[in-house]
């Protein structure tokens, strides 16, 4: 599903900063992989590269067999929209849209027919336990509920890869457990989940772990 070969990301200076160096690992469908490392180690840079939000300056990155280095921006956007789902530390719930409209956002940009969107959005919200808050405004939701809306939005278009950046960073322990349960359930035969975290509790739920230290990313032995 994901194959990185000696991927690096250097930010031009001065001073020049090599945030990611020679990252080489794979993620297959049906597994949950945790990316761990201390603050400033390059975890977020790696996630941005995996999410096609940023371009590596070296190496090759194959996403579902597509060499992303050869894509123009518009194609990268389309591949990101169709293949990836994002859950960030902040839920990024759009304040002026209700839950249904928030969850339907990826469908809007994907060009999914309007009549299909409410059905898919409702199903996604029900799958994260928010069937009773379909038309709630974000300012009426708790932190845990907002993050569940974000997860529903990340899976509504059935992406092959779910990328999560510190998804439980702003949650209490009860909501953390609930979100981790949800993410575990989202690992299916044709979907992979990648979670960037610095919390051991989160990493323990993953089947495999990639450790990032000073920009070097390498899988830990199982």
């Amino acid at each position, binding site marked *: 599903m994901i194959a990185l070969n000696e991927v690096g990301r250097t930010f031009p200076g001065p001073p020049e900063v090599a945030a990611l160096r020679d990252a080489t690992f794979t993620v297959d469908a049906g597994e949950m992989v945790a990316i761990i490392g201390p603050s400033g180690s390059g975890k977020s840079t790696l996630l*941005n590269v995996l*999410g096609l*939000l*940023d371009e590596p300056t070296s190496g090759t990155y194959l996403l*579902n*067999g*597509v060499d992303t280095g*050869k*894509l123009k*921006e*518009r*194609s990268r*956007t*389309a*591949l*990101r*929209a*169709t*293949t990836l789902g*994002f859950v*960030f530390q*902040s839920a*990024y719930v*759009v*304040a*002026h*849209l209700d839950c249904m*409209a928030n969850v339907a*956002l*990826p*469908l*809007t*940009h*994907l*060009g*999914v027919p*309007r009549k*299909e969107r409410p059905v*898919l959005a409702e199903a996604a919200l029900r799958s994260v336990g928010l069937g009773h808050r379909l038309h709630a405004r974000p300012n009426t939701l708790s932190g845990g509920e907002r993050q569940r809306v974000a997860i529903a*939005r990340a899976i*509504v*278009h*059935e*992406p*092959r890869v779910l990328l999560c950046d510190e998804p439980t960073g702003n949650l209490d322990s009860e909501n953390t457990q609930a979100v981790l349960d949800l993410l575990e359930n989202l690992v299916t035969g*044709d979907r992979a989940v990648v979670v960037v975290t610095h919390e051991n509790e989160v990493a323990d739920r993953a089947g495999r772990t990639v450790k990032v230290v000073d920009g070097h990313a390498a899988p830990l032995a199982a």
Partner: protein
Amino acid sequence: MRLPWRRKGKDDDLAGLGAVNNGRKVRTSPRDALIQAALAVKGRRLRSSLTIAGVALGIATAIGTLGITASAAGAVSDRFDAIKATQVTARYPEGIAAPPGAASENVRSLNGVEQAGLSCKAQDLDVGRNAYGKTVNLSAMAAQSEAMVAYQASLDQGRWFDAGHGERGDPVVMLDTAAAAQLGIKSLVDGPMVFIGGQPYLVVGIFTAPDNETRFTRAVVFPYERCLGGGFSAAEAIVRTSPGAAQQVATEVALALHPQAPARLTVTTPPDLETFQQGVQSETQALFLGLAAISLLIAAIGISNTTYVAVLERKPEIGLRRATGATRSAITVQFLFESGILGLVGGTIGTILGVDATAAAALGKDWLVILDPLLLAGGPLLGLVVGTLAGIYPALAAARLHPVEALRTA
């Protein structure tokens, strides 16, 4: 390389990428962008309302100034039309006063002449109700009744002079209403007399002086033949023409009045009416169009500022949209639609306010309300255009945001 969203079918080697879009082309339709923009405008009510109010004021000022200008210019032109556009005067050189028959016969025979008469001015006179009592100092004129009608004096009581009054040298005068009031003459029923230089004169008529001829205000008026006896000056002929004939009559009147030396007469004509109207309208409209343009510029800056602030505030939302598949052009279009909607709504409200203001101002002055129908349709359209143009820079700024940078600002 062929990518799945470029393919029509599902049975290709990359099928499965993005299951729900089913291989459709990834794009945000203009309608979806419009809906998203409308939701953003609706959802941010306070900020949207303030922006719309700014645009509405700008458009209302533009519509109002243009409407009031048109109404005022129309009123000015109408007033000019009624009083001045049909009036020609020909002044004789000092020391010369034309015999009454010349003006009457020669000038009145010209095409387009409706009334024509002669008048002259004398030194002010002391006028009393009896031979030795208190007197009132009044302006003194001598005029044919045709001249007074041509000057648009109106008869309140009694009668105008007739030809016999002058020919016989009858001791008769007319008074304007102010002079009559000063002399205590309220009615002509009893044949009131006034005394000038110890001589009695019968008051045959009381008239209201025309607004534009101050010489007839607080005046005692003798039959025109008094001008021929000396002591008078500023003899002139006044000619009232039919509408549109003034310019032509002006070229002929001097010759008709004084064939021996027409060049010695000074002829005064009104400016060409159409030129005058255009002048009034273009001057006032240029002034107010400038004001309207400034108002619109202020409104545009308001929209641009609001939209740009919205871009700064909504960086995370922009980052999220980009992460979930919105292209740069989709972001640009959405923000352009947002500013366009603000402009359109503001323009519509502003047009209504501007029309109301124009109607209130014009009706308050008893003017005819003049509004170009194009302006009514143009107001909302102008708001839309101004809003969209003002949104270009913020929209491009939003599109230029890198998703990583945008998401980092949360």
